């Protein structure tokens, strides 16, 4: 038996925060069909929402004429979400997590999305593939 066999699902959306609900429904639907625990699904869905929000805001600067791809890859062990955009590149691994007590004390706003993604997922990988866009891969172990 090939345990690496994957179920792959994909959707393409316009880069608008209006589509965040649709993206969450898509990811939640695929995770639910795979029989993943609700607690884990909630984490994956929030991480994907945060990552897509970052693409819409930072990679594409709210330009709704642009699009990006959400590809879900499900194996026995892992639930992976690959996000592909052709906007401004941004390597999340170059950004340190904020010190939360200081953050809260100083009443800062914003910049928590990436911090959450790292907390919620098991692995966050980023590749800038020349001509093929930015690839962000979020991985959650499910077995």
């Amino acid at each position, binding site marked *: 038996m090939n345990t690496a066999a994957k179920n792959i699902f994909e959707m393409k959306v316009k880069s*608008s*925060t*209006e589509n*965040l*609900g*649709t993206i*969450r429904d898509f990811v939640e639907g695929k995770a639910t069909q795979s029989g993943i625990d609700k607690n884990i699904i*909630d984490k994956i869905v*929030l991480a994907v*929402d*945060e990552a897509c*929000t970052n693409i*819409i*805001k930072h990679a594409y600067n709210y330009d709704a004429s642009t699009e990006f791809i959400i590809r879900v890859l499900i194996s026995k062990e892992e639930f992976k979400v690959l996000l592909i955009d052709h906007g401004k590149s941004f390597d999340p691994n170059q950004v340190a997590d904020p010190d*939360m*007590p200081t953050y*809260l*004390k100083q*009443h*800062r*706003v*914003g910049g*928590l*999305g990436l*911090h*959450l993604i790292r*907390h919620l997922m098991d692995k966050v990988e980023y590749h800038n593939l020349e001509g093929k866009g930015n690839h962000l891969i979020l991985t959650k172990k499910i077995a």
Partner: protein
Amino acid sequence: MAEFSTTHRENGEVNIIELNGYLDAHTAQHLEIAISDLIVKNKYKVVVNFERLKYISSAGLGVFMAFIETMRSNSGDIKLAAMQPSVYNIFDLLGFPLLYEIFPTETEAVNKFNQ
């Protein structure tokens, strides 16, 4: 599409904002407007009732961060109440209980203002 709405009530000096639905980067602006409306009217004592809020992302958390200083520097506060466990977990994960008082019920949050 994500749906989100707020309703506003008053209980004495305390302003209650009830959240309903999904609070994300698309709907956060709606909550910003609701809180800004209170500030325009010099109302700084706010209880946010989360009972019917199903989902929150960091954009939603950012709204509370944006207004907390204004409320507190005017002898008010933003107190949070009645969160679903899944919503509370996000606040807790980021350490927000350090900065915000979070109550199991709206009544307890309102009473804290009246103490």
